[in-house]
């Protein structure tokens, strides 16, 4: 499987390099589905121009990157435009390499976990077990999913800074699968430093650390377990605090906090994107605005708790599910988050057969991706549509993402049920029993 993987990887790189020569990057960097006020390269350049002039980029309301990103982007922007394009292709190459390693380690990790828990399985479930041969081509599928995924390509071409966010999250996942939970916690803190919502990813890392170091029949609520959770949480928050302190020393004051985290939480900029926040808060009555901001922000993180309890035996899948909730419900979503979801989807290809809504979901994704720029153009440039058209597309896209996430969770849980209970359930009269969700 090495040759097809390498071919698809190289094809992906060549595709990106070729598309950088066309006019597509300039067009994509203006598309609000791809770039948001947080990840736009144009705004980053503006912030750097102000910084060079001696004006603090956080004194205005255009630049919303964290100070570390300010430094990195400042370093990148010193090169010529062609070199900057090459740097972004290089970042995509790095992302692809990390995905390869993740696919590799994930395969091994899944076989190990399966070996430890196979004694709890139903004997009929033998044919549902993962085999080494199936996991050999994980690398190929993940590479294909990343190289030819239009969302990832769009993010790369538009020079969105979401690529940095994705790389850090993938590094966190990779270290978690390798077993370096503390390093993974540091990467989670770094991702949270950049875009704040990934802080909830410290929960799957903590659960994974506990599972890896569990001896005997220790339960999740034992004092030693709680101590291990607190260790991971402590590492995460300590690293975050250190990064914030260094940023304060770099900028000179705490003024970057309202511009970055205050901006993510308060949602003052109502630029359209494929999320739920912008039109909701455009049309919100002033009186209720704070209340609904709180509701929507809690909505992003609240799914951590039930998902963590339900998926406590599968922290990698929990990690992936939390990526979905962040990507759908965050205040400024973009194609960067969607690309990350699709790139990691092949890791769970053993769940596909249990999913129910794949056709509907794929159709919705196709339709929304094609329609979104059309409706935006009709509203803003042609003047023959209005904001509701684009809002409808954003609702449909969010629904498609939600369907994919819940369908995947459904399939995963159903497979677990079949593994533990066998897939033949007959009633006393010989007919098939129905497998339903019941309390």
């Amino acid at each position: 499987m090495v040759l097809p993987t390498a071919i698809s990887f190289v094809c992906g790189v060549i595709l990106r390099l070729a598309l950088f020569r066309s006019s597509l990057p300039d067009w994509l960097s203006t598309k609000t589905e791809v770039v948001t006020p947080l990840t736009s390269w144009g705004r980053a350049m503006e912030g750097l121009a102000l910084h060079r002039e001696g004006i603090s980029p956080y004194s205005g309301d255009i630049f919303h990157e964290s100070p570390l990103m300010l430094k990195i982007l400042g370093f990148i922007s010193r090169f010529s435009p062609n070199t900057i394009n090459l740097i972004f292709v290089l970042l995509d190459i790095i992302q692809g390499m990390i995905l390869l390693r993740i696919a590799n380690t994930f395969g091994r990790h899944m076989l190990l976990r399966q070996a430890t828990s196979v004694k709890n399985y139903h004997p009929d479930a033998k044919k549902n077990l993962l085999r080494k041969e199936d996991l050999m081509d994980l690398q190929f599928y993940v590479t294909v999913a990343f190289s030819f995924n239009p969302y990832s390509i769009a993010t790369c071409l538009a020079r969105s800074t979401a690529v940095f966010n994705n790389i850090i999250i993938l590094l966190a996942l990779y270290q978690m699968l390798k077993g370096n939970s503390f390093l993974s916690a540091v990467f989670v803190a770094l991702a949270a430093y950049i875009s704040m919502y990934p802080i909830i990813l410290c929960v799957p890392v903590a659960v994974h650390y506990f599972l890896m170091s569990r001896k005997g029949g220790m339960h999740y609520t034992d004092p030693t377990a709680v101590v291990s959770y607190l260790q991971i949480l402590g590492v995460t928050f300590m690293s975050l605090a250190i990064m914030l302190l260094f940023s304060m020393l770099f900028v000179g004051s705490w003024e970057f906090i309202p511009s970055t985290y205050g901006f993510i939480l308060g949602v003052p900029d109502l630029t359209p994107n494929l999320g739920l926040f912008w039109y909701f808060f455009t049309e919100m009555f002033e009186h209720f605005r704070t209340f609904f901001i709180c509701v929507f922000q809690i909505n992003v993180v609240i799914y951590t708790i039930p998902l963590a309890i339900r998926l406590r035996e599968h922290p990698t899948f929990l990690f992936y599910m939390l990526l979905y909730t962040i990507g759908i419900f965050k205040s400024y979503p973009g194609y960067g988050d969607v690309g990350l979801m699709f790139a990691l989807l092949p890791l769970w290809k053993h769940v596909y057969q249990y999913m129910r809504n794949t056709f509907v979901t794929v159709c919705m994704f196709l339709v929304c991706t094609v329609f979104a720029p059309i409706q935006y153009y009709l509203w803003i440039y042609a003047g023959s549509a209005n904001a509701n058209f684009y809002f409808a597309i954003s609702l449909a896209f969010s629904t498609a993402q939600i369907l994919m996430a819940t369908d995947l969770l459904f399939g995963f849980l159903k497979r677990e049920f079949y593994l533990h209970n066998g897939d033949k359930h007959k009633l006393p009269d010989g007919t098939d029993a129905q497998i339903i969700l019941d309390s």
Partner: protein
Amino acid sequence: MFHFQFTTVWNVSIDKPESFQHYHLFPKSLGDVLTTYKVKELHLSQTQGLWKHEKWGYPPEDAPPGDELWVWFQPHSGVDQTWADLVNALSGLFCASLNFMDSKSTVQPRWSFRPAGLASEFYSANSRFVRYSTLPREVVCTENLTPWKKLLPCGSKIGLASLLNSVKIYDGFYHSLGVHVRSVCQDTQCLTPATELKQTLTVVYDPTTNKNGKQDWSFQSMFDRTLQSQCPLADTRKIYVDVTTQETLPKFSLSPVPDFVLNQKRSGEERKIAVYQIGNHLSPSSLNLKAMYEEKLTFSNSSLPPVYANRFVTGYGLERGGVTCMIYNTMSSNTTVIFMETVPWFLRVYFSSLRIENDGKEIKPYKINFIPAKDRANPYQMELVFRLFANSVTKITYSFERAFLKWTEYPPDANHGFYVSSAVVSTVLPVASQYTATSQSVSLLEESFSDSSSSFFLRLHTETLLVSLPTPDFSMPYNVICLACTVVAIAFGSLHNLTTRDFTASDPSKRKGLVAKLKSFFKKEKESPENKPDSKEEEIPSQKDKDNSKSEEKDSKKKDGNSET
């Protein structure tokens, strides 16, 4: 063009509020406002129409369309609060919505609006105490003329102010009301300051509305009134008519004959001014100043003023755009200008796109002061100091992105657009060509006729811009909330279901739908009085069967498990 100027000089210092006690000619309403809000200098202008610099030269007081207010305060802390209180008080005093000049449109110009009156170097060096704001959307009408007239010592019944007929004035192309308060010297030694209140009104008419196509005008035809009295409280009561072109084309004659003709010589420009002492012309009948032209009006090329500017919006669509300002220098010498722009926060100006070009070559400005906007708090403030080359056009361009506002932040006619206030170009001219303003060191018009200075301060305002922003659908708040919450509920419901419930195997026939459950409920009610004992017996065995079947399943499972191990 008619320009009325009413100047009151009061020999008390505005820095000492306790001396603002016994009002005589100075209006008490304005004086109270000035002392309560610690004002050192105040300049308010209310204008309707655009002054065409290329065609008309320079006005005596340049004002942008709409309302403009700039104030220098006495040194004290909390200037922002004082400014907010002052604009509210002034909006009541002048019947204008000056209370909209809040922090969203107020700036502190660093170089452009230096004090026009007496001020120490140290005080005017920084801009902590100055506030500048404009309202380009404001409409000026009779409601604003009346309180302005009320501030005059003689009121509007006698004197030159009696000519101000609001019906005729608001028929003109351009009219501008001005109130300027500043500190001046009491005498040439300048040991003590005095407070000067200058009220100006500039009106531009098109006189060729006459039937015979000639430019004839008179007080009666322009104001529908004649001058019947003079203000006894005034020291100087004069009318000046510019008769520079009286002998050349177009020829005209004035009636009655002026008292005398002055020769005004300002460096580079010679003008002839006819002077009328009003008192001499009131008897036997009222003064109806007339100018009669010999020939019909012909348009000819007028000479361009030394510096003038044009500004416009570029781009298409509702997402982004650009602003271009062309500044023309028709003199044969270079000059330095200060260019100030105030852009509202919702047009996000990209500082990296700011370019100054002359003939295609980029000019680097001497100084840049750029303060970016904070959403819903301050506007963008830009001041550039750069050189205008002789006989050339300098182009300043920058691009902006249009922001999306909340639905309550749009004005009633949302698709009309939003106004961007005029840019201000300040420069010092070496020649006074087409320059009619009074020089800064004197108060009256006549005193500046014999001005021998060689530099003339000029302030120009460009056009205002009208920019459309993308609008949401204003009829949709309920629908949007419902739909967005529905999508959230889809996720919440599915995830809640999947995380709180477990998969079980169940018999589809035993599961009753809602309709079947209701049916069986009503059936039970009907049958119960008749078949109670029978039904009870029937139920118990069925339950037993259920239990048996369940235990059978469990046994089968166990058996399977046992067989495996």
